[in-house]
Structures are given as structure tokens and as C-alpha cells.
């Protein structure tokens, strides 16, 4: 298995607050990789650095063998780096279908502009419907995304990200606020997406049980430093993690 993403010695500070100090890890092709840590550990900051919202002070991110330094978020998304956000960052006023189509646009970049507009729309639609069907969102395709219940909105966001056929999908707390059943559904969708479309997954999540059960490897952050980087079985045994994250016993 090749390495799809490599973070080398990432440093980032905001006016004296050290958000990331020397973070290093690598994600293998096809892996389900988790980032966990207590509040303020720098998890979301890390995702922002990976997706290009922030530029690191030092160090670099290698994605598919290319350095991402200086690349804007939309350039990165065109390279195949998808992302969902903590909280809801869907397009609330647009229909579910339009949300997914917007994501799907990225999956069709190789078609030249010469493709007639109607034909292009049609191909987008066909692919978007496939994704909607996959995530069981088809009945809601024409509903404004902002009108759906929370769990479905979360799913719309995942659908939009998956529709762009990312090679690596960054998920920021996808399970936050979901019921147990919705969590199970989402886990199944994600595992299936990896199986079917070969998406590598990197997720930040607070639900420790889900993380340890689903992930192949785990990175534990605390105050911007890496405490642990390895298989999920080792997380509970690691003394440093136990102290910082799970509390002292």
C-alpha cells in the first residue's frame, strides 16, 4: 500500500498559541485513519492545514507525491482532497441535488468545455443520482438542504464530498450530534464508499468507541503534539494518551 498523504514536521502558531508543533504522520492508500484528542488539541487546525484554509509556518504536506505548499483550497480539492466540516457547512438554500451536483462538478474536470452544456448537466445528474441513491437521499433530492433534519443534513454534506470522487476525504466530526442508529448508518456508508470507490478516509471524531472500532490507525494529538501514532489497539494501553485524553486512573 502506497502512501497517499504525508505530513512532515508541521508547525503552526497563532500569536503565541502553538496550535501544531512538529506534527508528523502518514496515511496509506485505502486506509481509514483517525485523528483524536481532547478539546483544543489542534485536530480541526490540522484539517484546515491539510485542506489549505491555513498555511503551516513550517513543514509541509505531501499529497500523492506532490507538495501542497502554496496551493489554494480549490486547487487541493481538484487534486482529489475532499473535506466535510465540523458543524454544518452545506449550502442550505440549494436543493440536495444541487449540493451534490456542485460536488460532482469536480469529478468531471477532464471533460473539455466543448461538451454541450445539456450533456454535461446530464452526466452530472446521472452521477449525482448514483451518490444520492447510495446514501439513501434520493427522496429528498429537490428539497432545500437547509430544511432537512440534522442527521440528513450531515449526510448531504458527506454526499457532496463523496460526489467529487475524492482520493482522500477529510471528515471533521461526522458523527457529532447523530443518534446511534444514524452513526451506524454513516459508518456503513463510509466503509462502503472506501470499498466501492477506493476513497481513503481521514476523520476527526470524538466518539472513541466508533473510532477504535472502525479505524485502521489512529493519531492522538494533545496541545498540538503527537502523543500516539499507530493501530487502535494500542491507544488504550499508551500511558501518555491515558493521561492526556482518557484521564488519569
Amino acid at each position, binding site marked *: 500500500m502506497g502512501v497517499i498523504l504525508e505530513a512532515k514536521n508541521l508547525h503552526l502558531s497563532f500569536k503565541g498559541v502553538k496550535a501544531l508543533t512538529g506534527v508528523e504522520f502518514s496515511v496509506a492508500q485505502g486506509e481509514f485513519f483517525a485523528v483524536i484528542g481532547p478539546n483544543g488539541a489542534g485536530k480541526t487546525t490540522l484539517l484546515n492545514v491539510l485542506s489549505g484554509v491555513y498555511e503551516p509556518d513550517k513543514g509541509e504536506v505531501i499529497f500523492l507525491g506532490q507538495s501542497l505548499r502554496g496551493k489554494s483550497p480549490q486547487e487541493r480539492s481538484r487534486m482529489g482532497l475532499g*473535506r466535510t466540516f465540523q458543524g454544518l457547512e452545506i449550502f442550505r438554500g*440549494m436543493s440536495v441535488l444541487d449540493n451534490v451536483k456542485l460536488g460532482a462538478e469536480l469529478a468531471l474536470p477532464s471533460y473539455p468545455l466543448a461538451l454541450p*452544456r445539456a450533456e454535461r*448537466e446530464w452526466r452530472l445528474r446521472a452521477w449525482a443520482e448514483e451518490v444520492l441513491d447510495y446514501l439513501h437521499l434520493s427522496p429528498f433530492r429537490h428539497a432545500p438542504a437547509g430544511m432537512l433534519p440534522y442527521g440528513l443534513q450531515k449526510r448531504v454534506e458527506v454526499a457532496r464530498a463523496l460526489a467529487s470522487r475524492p482520493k482522500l476525504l477529510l471528515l471533521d466530526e461526522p458523527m457529532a450530534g447523530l443518534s446511534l442508529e444514524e452513526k451506524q448508518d454513516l459508518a456503513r456508508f463510509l466503509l462502503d464508499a472506501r470499498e466501492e470507490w477506493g476513497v481513503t478516509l481521514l476523520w476527526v471524531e470524538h466518539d472513541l468507541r466508533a473510532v477504535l472500532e472502525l479505524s485502521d490507525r489512529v493519531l492522538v494529538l494533545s496541545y498540538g503534539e503527537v502523543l500516539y501514532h499507530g493501530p487502535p489497539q494500542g491507544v488504550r494501553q499508551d500511558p501518555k494518551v491515558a493521561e492526556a485524553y482518557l484521564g488519569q486512573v
Partner: protein
Amino acid sequence: MYRLAKQLTDAFSRRFARSVRETYRQDEAYASTPLGRLALGVFLVFLLLLPLLLPPYPMYVTTLVAIGALSALGLHLLVGGAGQISLGHAAFMGVGAYAASHLYGPLAPLGILLGGGIAALLGLVLGLPSLRIKGVYLAIATLAFQFLADYVFKNWEAVTGGIRGRTLPPAELFGFVLDTPGRLWYLVLVFALPLFFYGKRLLMTRAGRAFMAVRDNDLSARVAGVDLVRVKLLAFALSAFYAGVAGGLLAQLYKAVTPEYFPLMVSIQYLAMVIVGGAGTVLGAILGAFFVLLIPEVLNSLVGSLGPQYAATLAAWRNVVFGLLILAFLILEPLGLVGLWGRIRNYFRTWPLPY
């Protein structure tokens, strides 16, 4: 007789009553059902025959509303579509009008296009601040543009004729002199129909989705691969183009251009059309323009019919009533006239069995 009627209605329902879209491909197209195509065709014929049906003054008002709707659609694309605010819409109309006032007669269509083009270039410039600022701050920046344009209209005598403005002879199309609103109507159609279809198509396809993504959430739009700079500049330029073309047509309708036609008040009126019309749809632009431009006319004629002795007092009340109507809309139907229309349509679609 009965059998003939039955056969006719049966034929009609076989041909037209299938109003359900059955494939994704049909869902993508507009006017995809036979009934929809029939309605569209009838509507287009109606538009062509309109000058024959209406007396001169209502025709003048109709032309005015159509031009207003075109301009309102431009603002809709910007405000309802891309979520950027502009208080300078009237200024762009002014730019188009003054440009058109220099190319008249047989050159009028060219002048109107040129007016749209110049307005679009200025729109690009006005779009620049939108890359850095949002909301109220952007409104103030566009307000500055409105005042600047007003100043230029009043003082650049060589081009604008200063306070007195410019007059222009009627336009000509294929040798026909378009000297009445009923004749000018066809020139309006030549510009408005393609622009309306383009606007409709735009909101249904890639660029429209990018617009709405920027409106709803510009951070995740960027991560979803939308080029913010391009979208915002395009939205401003496009909106200004619509305004410029509408301004040129307006100059042809008034046969004159003066700075008084394009003050801040008009910009605000157009924003009112967007709000009253409702969410960024083409229909919203049309309904909003109808409401904002037509209601004062209706109130005017109501006041006039009560007799001249009340005219002075009631003229002031006219504005109050107009304001109250807009207020009522904001409170009672936040989706605007489009929302109202949707509810009426659904009522009839499910009638007589709403449940």
C-alpha cells in the same frame, strides 16, 4: 355532439395532460412536459400580440415593467443568486442609458449592447471590493459607486449633457421606426427573451450552482472547488450587463436620459423588487418588478378616480400604502411572491382533493 366533445377532451389529455416527469433527463430540461411546452408557446404568442391588445398607456406601463423586470433579474442573479448586495444598480442602468443615447436610430440595438458591455466592465470594477468585504460594508462600497456615478452623470457635460441630459430620436429595427411603446416592445423582446432564458438556464447549471454556493457558504464553496474570485466578479459583471441593457432600453422608451432617472432611490426600488419577488428565481424577478412598478400606477389611478380635490392629500398616502404593502410581504410571506405563487399552484394541482 357529446361524442365529439369526449373525443376532443380525450385527445387533449393524451397529448398534454401527462404532466409527470418520468426520467432524470426530463427533470433536467425546462418545459419538459407537453403541457409545459404548450403553455410556453401560448405565452410567447401572447407576448408577440400584446401591442395589438393594449391601448397606448397600459402598453407604455407594460413596456416599463418588462424593462424593469429585465433589470431586476440582473440584480436577482447578484443578490438572490450569488448573495452579494449592491446599492448601485441604478448607476449601471444609467451607464447603459447614456451609452445608448450616443448610438441611436438604426444603431440603437448596437448602442444598447454597448451600454450593457460598458456597464459589465464597470461591474467588474465594482466587484473588486466584494472580494474583501461582505454584507453591510459591501453595501456601503456600492453606495459610494452610486454617488460617484450620479456625480459623473451630472457633470461630464460632453458625454451626458449634464443636468439637462440628452434626448434621442427613436430606434429603428430593419427600417421600422420604433417610435411608440407598442413598437419599441419588439426591441425589448429581442433583448429580454434571450436574457431571460439565459438567466433561467444559468441558475439551473454550473455557474448558478457556484453562485448559490458562494451565497450560502463561501468557506465550504472554496473547499468544494469553487473559485470565489471568478464567481463574485462574474456575478457583478453579469448583473451590471443586465442593468446596462435595461438602461439602454429605458432610454429608448423615455427618448431621453437625465440624471434624475437613476438616483439612489431607484437602486433601492430594485432591491425591493428582489425582496418582494422572493428567492433568486427568474419568476421572482418578474413578479417583483410587476409589484413594485405597477402598484404605484394602480394607486395613482385610484387616487385620480376619487376626484382632483383629494389628489394632493392622497398623493402622500400613496407612498405610505406602498410601504405598508412591502412591509406586509416581508412579514406574511418571506418567500415573496414566488412563495405565494407556489402555494396557489399547489392548491390547484391537488384540487379538489388536497389530502
